[in-house]
């Protein structure tokens, strides 16, 4: 059993020796049984609700199934059908547009906020609480509230406020061009606080010595931020970027609740398409829905691999 033996002894011999020594009784006595019992909740829950579904996804993508009748194997037909779906370019374009807008709105704002907040000498907690507040609002509540804010009439909340400075009224969700930015604005409101807190936690760990050293070299405040603070956040910034892309690529709630993909499919995202294929009125096309979700997952996996390859040389952590 000792590792030094295991290195020198050929594998076959080692195995027989181990078998002789590890009878069920010694296994139980050494805590093997209790370890297994303790692992049971994890094994069962992960087995049934995580590992098996992953396998099952591949299986279902090769079947024609409505979950009622017995599934039939159809090979790659589902993938073919999904890839030739006339809506596919639209939903890909919409999802990419959402992800891009979410990056433009949602990526720099929390960073600037967190850097400013980390310089607070008092009431940092108060600022953090304010920033995090929207995150704890249930998403359905946030969407329904913002849907009302986006009332396209001149009496709508946003149109009233913008009217004070002579802007609008804007159509918001009712218009194909305006709808997606409106969705992203709400999504940014709901998520930015979480990112701010992550950055703040990372900022706390910037070593004080680096700032001291920069001061000895006569660096101004802005140079300290540019050359010390931001580079120290590099690792976190890389991770939040890819996590945000992975998250926004699977965006569902906002398009579903705000517009249900409309007007004229302008906000229909990949995830909403998956939902519609599987669960909407004429759906029950579970095979195709799974195929589309697998394609999305494969794309995300490749994208993150490429991303980590590309950034590996710059990233610190």
């Amino acid at each position, binding site marked *: 059993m000792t590792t030094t033996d295991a290195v020198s002894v050929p594998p076959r011999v080692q195995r027989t020796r181990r078998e002789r020594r590890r009878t069920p009784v010694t296994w139980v006595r050494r805590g093997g049984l209790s370890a297994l019992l303790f692992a049971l909740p994890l094994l069962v829950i992960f087995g049934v*609700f995580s590992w098996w579904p992953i396998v099952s996804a591949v299986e279902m993508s090769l079947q024609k199934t409505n979950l009622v009748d017995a599934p039939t194997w159809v090979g790659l037909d589902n993938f073919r059908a999904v890839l030739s779906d006339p809506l596919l370019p639209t939903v890909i374009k919409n999802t990419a547009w959402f992800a891009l807008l979410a990056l433009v709105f949602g990526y720099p704002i929390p960073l600037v906020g967190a850097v400013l907040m980390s310089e607070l000498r008092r009431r940092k907690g108060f600022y953090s609480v304010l920033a995090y507040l929207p995150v704890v609002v249930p998403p359905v509540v946030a969407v329904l509230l913002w849907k009302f804010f986006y009332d396209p009439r001149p009496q709508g909340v946003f149109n009233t406020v913008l009217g004070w400075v002579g802007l609008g009224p804007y159509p918001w969700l009712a218009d194909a061009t305006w709808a997606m930015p409106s969705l992203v604005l709400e999504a940014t409101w709901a998520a930015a606080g979480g990112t701010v807190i992550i950055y703040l*936690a990372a900022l706390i760990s910037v070593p004080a010595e680096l700032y001291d050293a920069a001061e000895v070299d006569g660096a101004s405040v802005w140079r300290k931020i540019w050359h010390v603070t931001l580079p120290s956040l590099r690792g976190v910034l890389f991770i939040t970027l890819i996590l945000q892309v992975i998250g926004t690529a699977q965006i569902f709630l906002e398009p579903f609740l705000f517009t249900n993909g409309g007007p004229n499919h302008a906000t229909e995202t990949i995830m909403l398409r998956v939902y519609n294929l599987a669960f909407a009125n004429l759906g029950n096309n579970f095979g195709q829905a799974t195929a589309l979700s697998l394609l999305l997952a494969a794309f995300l996996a490749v994208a993150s691999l490429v991303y980590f390859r590309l950034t590996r040389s710059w990233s610190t952590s």
Partner: protein
Amino acid sequence: MTATSSSQGSPPPDSLAGPAVPAVPTPRAGVAPGHAGPPATSAVLARSLRARRGASGGPGGRRRRGPSDERERGALSVADWRRPQVAWTWRGMHLALLVLLVVWCLGPLLLLAKFAFTPTQDILTHPMALFPNGFTTGNIEQAWTRYHIGRYFMNTVWVALGSWFVQVLVATTGGYVLSVLRPRWAKALNWAVLTTLFVPAVVLLIPLYKIVVDPPVGETLINSYLAVWLPAGASAFNVVLVSRFFDSLPREIFEAARVDGAGPLRVFWSIVLPMSRPIIGVVSVFAVIASWKDFLWPFLVLKSETVKPLSVYLQSMANVDKGTLMAALAISTLIPVVMFLLFQRMFLRGAGLGGAVKG
């Protein structure tokens, strides 16, 4: 894996002493919290402080504000703050940020609170006016009595409680196996758990639905809380969080207990669990918040009125009278916001920790 995990990594004796430090006037720059003074004094101080604060914060939640905050500095040095130009620029920016945060983050919620007490006609015609035609509690009454918000609210509480229990059970027992018991197959198990972190949720949606419609044992789980509770437990994130914490506990304690004749169950129940209260707190906050926020999955599997949680019910309310809807939205926001304000340290610490683990 920076300050966050290293601070949560210190064993609970430190966490007892940690909160006591701010009470000590001298700045303890660079001194580990465990060395905050003679053990007896700090333990007594800590105990009295904890007693005063009650159970709300938990020892771990307080620690962040301890000595580390005094030691830390930002880009601006004390000397920078003494220079008028720098000081006023930054004060100005901080004030602007505060105004922005109040308008942007708090504003919509204040509006929601106002709408809840405004007659529907005024909400629709003068949304930004402050009670032009008086104040009403009729919206709240409607939402509560006619639309039974309370009932769906209780459904959400059930969903949250069950998910919490399953998540804590799986994460603590799983973490115990992976980090403390460490059988030979722990490495493979750890690997199998970790890989699920890289599978996006979208892949699981439909296969999970299939399993819930027709589970391997027993009846269909559609319209049963189990359909939400059980999948919630399969969170690799929780397992990673907890097993990292367990890794940081001193193994000598377990060895000592084992020598004293404690079995694995006893070690788990009497040593590991009490020591891991901070991390269980974080997992609990995550679990409760997640089940409060979840929409798509309950929307698919909890369809009947008797089990529908609030988020699903609100969605079906989208077209009722605006005043009533706003009151319903306000009620559903109140509880999470109040919980957040009460346990803010734990929330914020958990949110920061989330980034650290992901990072």
